[in-house]
């Protein structure tokens, strides 16, 4: 990168400019470590105006930029682009305002997810989206990916909890999307920005909704002989009209890994179910009895109910550590993130088992079973020639299966770089072209995280038709800015 431009960047962020190759390596990938690109420079702004100044230079010089939070994403969304810079929001990490009467919290994008809950917990509130990486991932990254977590079955995703954003657009303009109050007139811009994977601009402030902690939380752990039996219990629970806060399932391989790693005390079984109910005490007790009965009817041979905070923490520890725990039972693994209609669960599990046997590769399964979100973990040994490629292919074939069953190629990890070529299998060309109209409106020059999400880039036509004044404007009675 030209010294002239680096000088301008330095004038904005001072020591927050990284150009040393050895230091740049830290930023060459995100949580998807098999894809790596060395950025030209990394900038660590500390304010909205610094972000704006950086983006203006990028716009003027046509330098592509990639915003980055904590770098825990699993689809390569924060992978740098050739000849581009990385803008890390890690230093913009202040909780700016806590408004309890309105249940709103205003944060900078670098704030860590669980720090929001930590801050409001003494007042009986929590921030609901809880990705497994919540102790390290940032709100800005959550906004980009529309992160979910185990409890989004009941509480919704990041997009449910973001009311408003301050955004630096790719042309350097600062705009405010949404509002602290609901239903702002106009298009639902927070709705389109959240989950856009950094392709529409950089969020510099986020207004979050927090939720009152439920009166009672109980977590049931049920051991089954097979994932089929556990899956039948999930269907039974949903069919009974119960909406748990979370339903998680793990197969035997995943249980073994979790046990080896964090000793959660899980029973050694073919299919393990965690069902969490929360709400008013009378309601939870009544429904938990019912859930227990359904599990028993479906073949559960051990049922435990964790009541205290400490007991619940242990039960969840194994589940949340499941991905990382794979390292205990396999030298390498690929995490996938597919979604199927819940009722297709038994069929897809059978299919995965057959595919796994045919490839001779083990697949561990961890699911958010309540909403049909699968996380198959394809285990392999990178030292054996060809195994990584076969593992990759197997994981892609599992996603194809999800699409075939009417599901999605990603439930919460995003498309990013990794799965953009799969978009064409889920959507037709006109669908993808239409989505990219939004991109053209926000970022016609495609400087913000270019090349991600879509398999091909739509050329943005200059589509601003002649502006026609409204009769009210002509009459001079209303001003439309």
């Amino acid at each position, binding site marked *: 990168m030209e010294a002239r431009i680096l000088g301008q960047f330095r004038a904005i962020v001072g020591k927050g400019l990284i150009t040393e190759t050895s230091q740049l390596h830290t930023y060459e990938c995100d949580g998807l470590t098999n894809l790596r690109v060395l950025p030209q420079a990394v900038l660590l702004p500390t304010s909205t105006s610094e972000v704006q100044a950086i983006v203006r230079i990028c716009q003027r010089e046509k330098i592509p930029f990639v915003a980055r939070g904590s770098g825990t994403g699993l689809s390569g969304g924060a992978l740098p682009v050739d000849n581009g810079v990385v803008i890390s929001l890690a230093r913009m990490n202040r909780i700016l305002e806590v408004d309890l*009467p*309105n*249940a709103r919290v205003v944060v900078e994008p670098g704030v860590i997810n669980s720090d929001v809950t930590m801050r409001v917990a003494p007042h009986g509130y929590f921030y609901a989206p809880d990705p497994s990486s919540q102790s390290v991932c940032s709100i800005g990254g959550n906004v980009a*990916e529309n992160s*979910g977590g185990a409890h989004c*079955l009941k509480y919704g995703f990041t997009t*449910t909890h973001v009311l408003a954003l301050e955004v630096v657009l790719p042309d350097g303009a*600062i*705009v*405010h999307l949404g*509002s602290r*109050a609901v*239903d*702002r*007139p*106009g*298009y*639902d*811009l927070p709705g*389109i920005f959240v989950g856009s994977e950094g392709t529409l601009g950089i969020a510099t402030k986020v207004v979050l909704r927090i939720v*009152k902690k439920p*009166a009672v939380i109980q977590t049931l752990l049920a051991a089954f002989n097979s994932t089929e039996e556990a899956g039948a219990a999930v269907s039974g629970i949903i069919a009974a009209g*119960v*909406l748990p806060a979370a339903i998680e399932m793990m197969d035997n391989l995943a249980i073994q890994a979790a046990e080896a790693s964090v000793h959660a005390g899980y029973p050694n079984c073919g299919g393990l179910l965690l069902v969490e109910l929360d*709400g008013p005490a*009378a309601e939870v*007790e*009544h429904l938990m009895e019912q859930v227990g009965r359904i599990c028993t009817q479906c073949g559960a041979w051990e049922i435990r109910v964790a009541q205290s905070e400490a007991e619940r923490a242990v039960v969840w520890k194994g589940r949340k550590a499941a991905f990382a725990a794979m390292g205990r039972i396999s030298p390498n693994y690929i995490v996938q993130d597919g*979604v199927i209609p*819940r*009722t297709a669960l038994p069929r897809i599990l059978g299919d995965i088992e057959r595919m796994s046997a045919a490839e001779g590769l083990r697949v561990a399964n961890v699911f*958010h079973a309540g*909403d*049909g979100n699968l996380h198959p973990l394809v285990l392999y040994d990178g030292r054996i020639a060809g195994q990584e490629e076969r593992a990759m292919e197997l994981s892609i074939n599992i996603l194809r299966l999800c699409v075939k069953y*009417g*599901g*999605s190629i*990603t*439930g919460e*990890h995003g*498309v990013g770089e990794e799965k953009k070529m799969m*978009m064409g299998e*889920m*959507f037709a060309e006109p*669908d993808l072209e239409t*989505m990219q*109209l*939004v991109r053209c*409106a*926000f970022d016609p020059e495609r400087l913000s995280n270019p090349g991600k999400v879509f398999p091909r880039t739509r050329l943005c036509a200059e589509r*601003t*038709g002649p*502006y*026609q004044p*409204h009769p*009210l*404007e002509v009459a001079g*009675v209303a001003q*439309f*800015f």
Partner: protein
Amino acid sequence: MPHPSIAAVETAWSDLRALVGEEHMRASMMEDAVDDVLPQMVIEPGTAEEVAGALKIATGAGLKVIPRGGATKMGWGNSPRGGELILSTRRLNRVVEHAWGDMTATVEAGCTFQHLQETLAAHGQRLALDPLWPEHATIGGILATNDSGPLRVRFGSLRDLIIGITLALPDGTLAKSGGKVVKNVAGYDLPKLATGSLGTLGIITQAIFRLHPVPRESRTLSFATSDDATSHGEGMNALVLAIQDCNMVPTGVQVRAGSGSAPEVDLRFEGTAAGCEAQTEQTMRLESGARRIESPADVWNAHAELFRGSEDCVVCKFSVLPADLGVFLESIRTVTEPLHLPWKLVAQAVGAGYLRFERCDSSAVISVLHDLRKKLETRGGSLVILRCPHEIKSTMDVWGSAGDALALMRSIKAQFDPTGVLNPGRFVGGI
């Protein structure tokens, strides 16, 4: 944009007739007028492909199109800048699929809300939304206007319930976004973009929703607060905040107020009998100075009552920070009292509600509307006029400010509808 030539229009009419069939296109009548715009034709396509095809023909001929579902809210939005063709989704009225095991439903845009709910109820499920006029309002229209009711306190609004959409664009593209699964982050979230866009980006032909179980029990409680007709809503505010601050899970928290009457609060619990009972008891233990009263009949439909009767009334939707509701009541009293302007309000605890003014003198109402809108917008809220006499609509923008993101909204409109075919001028900022 030049006016379409007569020859081009004649060709378009015959192409449209050929597309949907003679019997599904007719000349318009007086009741098809939207404010002061009387379109020439009404077309009723029978498939999504026909909707897209009709839009392509209209766009090619330079005709403006006004989409219509159940026609219950045609007066919402600014007056259109023009419109030659009404495109009715009336014949797209099927519930395509109720995947009850997956708790999702795929439904065509012209299906009435009531028909959808009746279909879903067969398997003990519902779309957890309570929009206005469910027997006539269609899914497409409810989405386009982002309508909601008391249930949103617990289940959110349409943006939290819609998971997939099919849109017909002015160039004839038929595009899908989202899907049939509740959890899905593949691609941009067009279902949310279309929700509340008042038909200005495309015509919704089909939508997919996540569903909830029909509750086993439901219990409604109503309270008179410690406020009287002249106080400033502190009692009401205290009660609403106390309810929200105590780990209960109501599916309705509603405030009713008006000139000459003290605010009342309605509360609803749904779920198991034991849960409803326990929460009722918990509510009765709250120390808020409120007194339990008999709930008026059909109290959860109180917001629809505000639209009843006189065409001369003004009905607005407002949005306010939840804790500001009391202050807002006070503002209404302050600005209306000197003018002796009667008003009524029904608000949900999330901070959204409807406000009605009986009209006395339109210049007085206009000054009140401006005044309240300014107060609300300063604190992040909004005031949108939904129904008013012509002389008010011709002098006031019904939406209010869209803030500094308006230019971005215009760019989005320009991408989806570059020649301004759909509902021209009816949306924010003259979009």
